[in-house]
């Protein structure tokens, strides 16, 4: 009994660690797509900013500097996306895909050119990373049964970006549903003509939205390489951007349900790691590959089965043009 409780605790702990970049990216996706811009480039922006974060931190020794560099890099990628598909009315999926390919190639090429480590950046020392924060009164709390242990093992002891990701969810919710900016952002994604004829610039609204998305992706990337990890490894985003996109759709472009979708996908991946090499009743040992595929398979099943009625923003993917 105690042992299975321990297993659950450690599963939840890794769920949160795995879900953090998903949450940042999914919130980024919500900002972008609610304004009518498909953001398939979450993956690439995250990868690029992970690389920039690790490199800038290695060079300057300061993770704060690394974080800002990551945000800057990610926002630049957002601007490229915006220039292609807002200003020049290009295809948003193609442009996003191009950013992913660019990020994938650029990070490896620059990595090899700068550090000659096969695309990796040099490992960072712990003072160069965002390290876990321990909450006060841990010792006293650890004696409280169940809750105490949950608090100590699951809630406490993460790096600052993990807590920031939860804040990002509430930030997204508040901005999108409670402010004038949010009303206009939602309107521009549903019916840009209505916004334009209301005397608000569609172009400006959309650029603002994708820049916020860029910042959030920057946080996700920095989390990967200078908080959760201690350096950049090639392709280290490993499809998380796409999973975040799936979580956003599963959460119907709403921040709170999307948070839970991210946690669910995080949990599935944690479970997959946990079950590697474990003998299951009736089934026996499950091959590693099956466990690794589990989150993706479930994503597909969930996408196909549960969210059949998810309604995307009305004008998503359609470039806005006034004259015809």
């Amino acid at each position, binding site marked *: 009994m105690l042992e299975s409780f321990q297993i659950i605790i450690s599963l939840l702990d890794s769920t949160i660690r795995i879900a953090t970049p998903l949450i940042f990216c999914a919130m980024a996706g919500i900002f972008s797509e609610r304004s009518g811009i498909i953001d398939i480039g979450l993956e690439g922006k995250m990868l690029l900013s992970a690389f920039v974060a690790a490199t800038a931190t290695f060079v300057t020794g300061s993770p704060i500097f690394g974080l800002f560099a990551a945000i800057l890099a990610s926002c630049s990628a957002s601007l490229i996306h915006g220039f292609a598909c807002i200003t020049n009315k290009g295809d948003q999926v193609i442009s996003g895909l191009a950013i992913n390919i660019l990020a994938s190639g650029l990070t490896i090429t620059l990595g090899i050119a700068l550090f000659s480590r096969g695309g990796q950046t040099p490992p960072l020392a712990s003072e160069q990373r965002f390290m876990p924060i321990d909450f006060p009164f841990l010792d006293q709390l650890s004696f409280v049964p169940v809750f105490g242990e949950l608090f100590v093992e699951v809630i406490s002891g993460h790096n600052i970006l993990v807590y920031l990701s939860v804040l990002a969810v509430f930030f997204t919710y508040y901005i999108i*549903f*409670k*402010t*004038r*900016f*949010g*009303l*206009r952002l*939602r*309107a521009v994604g*549903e*019916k840009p*003509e*209505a*916004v*334009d*004829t*209301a*005397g*608000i*610039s569609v172009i400006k609204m959309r650029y603002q939205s994708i820049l916020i998305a860029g910042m959030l992706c920057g946080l996700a990337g920095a989390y990967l390489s200078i908080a959760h990890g201690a350096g950049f490894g090639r392709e280290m985003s490993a499809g998380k951007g796409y999973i975040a996109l799936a979580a956003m759709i599963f959460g119907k472009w709403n921040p709170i349900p999307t948070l839970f979708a991210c946690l669910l996908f995080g949990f599935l991946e944690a479970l997959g790691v946990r079950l590697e090499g474990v003998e299951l009743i009736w089934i026996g040992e499950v091959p590693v590959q099956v466990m690794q595929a589990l989150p993706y398979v479930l994503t597909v099943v969930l996408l196909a089965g549960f969210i059949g009625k998810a309604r995307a923003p*009305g004008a998503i993917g359609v470039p806005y043009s*006034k*004259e*015809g």
Partner: protein
Amino acid sequence: MKNTENKGGNEAIASLPPSTESAIELKNITKRFGHVVANSHVNLKVRTGTIHGIVGENGAGKSTLMNILFGLYKPDSGMIFLNGQAVDVNSPEKSIALGIGMVHQHFMLVPTFTVLENAMLGNEGSMLLRSGEEVVLDRLKGLSNNYGLDVDFEAIISDTPVGMQQRVEILKALNRGAKILILDEPTGVLTPQETIGLFDILRSLREQGVTIILITHKLKEIMSITDTVSVMRGGKVVADFSTEKTSPEELAENMVGRKVLLSIKKPTLKVGKPVLEVKNVSHESKDGVLVLKNISFDLKEGEILGIAGVAGNGQSELLDILSGIETLQRGQITVNDKTILPFQDWNSKKAREFGVAHVPEDRHKRGLVLPFHNYENSILGYHRNEDYSSGFLMDKRKILNFVDDLVENFDVRPRSSSISSGKLSGGNQQKLVLAREIESNPNILLVGQPTRGVDIGAIERIYEDLMKLKSKGTAILLVSVELDEIMSLSDRIVVMNQGTIVGETNSSNATELDLGKMMSGLEQV
């Protein structure tokens, strides 16, 4: 005043009653899209506190001109004066700041938002929605009471009737302080009752000093509500009138540039036996909504049966089923003594074989392949016919012969077989579709919205063709949202509301008000 044909219309304006002040004055506005001149040296003057009508056929440049005034388009040259001051209206933002509001033909409302959210968009009152909503709601309620703009602020736009959506649009403009209101074809989607309601609102706005520009192609409306009217043709203002001194005939003549026959001569002939019988047809849409409920009617040889109703009350689905595009789900259809039962093999190919021809409501989506040439479009759906093919291959020479006669006989302009149909005007596209269907010698013709987006000259021709077909004994089912059209063409009229037939009447004793009541579902006959 008669047949004013001056280039800018200044002369006509000068002969209007002396104006104290003009709210809007456009001078020499020119706008080109590529090689197309949409507006050419347009002059327009509208006095403060009046309702000014602008009439003209499709493509005459009315909407372009208003979009320039609203700041959506930039004119290539010309000046705009508001209350005597030269202004530069380079964006909607600017025009709103100057007190211009516009209700577009296609509403600019966010379908998923509430009425309140839509009405406040652009003037939200505060950075935060909650505090802004209180301020704006107060103001909107005041405006709503003041002008009889009855709306439900909590309702989601997509659930509200079009009449209310239009009132929301007007509220939205007033919320932003509009003193000049432009309405682009505001009555196209309204029932006659809703139109009367709208006109009451416009009159009370005028009383309180709001200047209104009304764009429409319905001459009756111009006559009933405007103070002054300008006629546009080919991108120019060709005449200005004081409404009380003109007549619909004079306006129509100026719109088209020649005399137009507005009345239709119906051939009198005895109707024959029923050729189309529809019994208890019900239909469920893909979303599980019952869009047709127990529809029954019949259509006889040489008869035109009009189906009246506000758009979206099941007429489109009915046409789809009868023409074989949709599967019949419940009920029974008999076409020329052949009976079709639910889920039986029934498709548009079969419909044609049974003698049913179909002029679809949306000629762009269903009537034509726009990038195709006229000769290709002219046989679409009949391409299996042996006249046009020699076995596996199409016989282009035969098709060209056929289409040359077709465009000649049905006055499709330009008379070209090889121009792509997308380049034709709306009226000529419609003439081509109608020609194709009539040439197949149907004994049942289904016609949906035959004159939507079609100019008066072409309408005249289309009506003539339909009458000619009727006198040959063809049964015609006419679906239209234009009540005038239904009333003047049909022998018998049925009215649809929410998927049911709510009334039937003979066209000779139908009145617009009675039909309007039925269309809005208020009255069953």
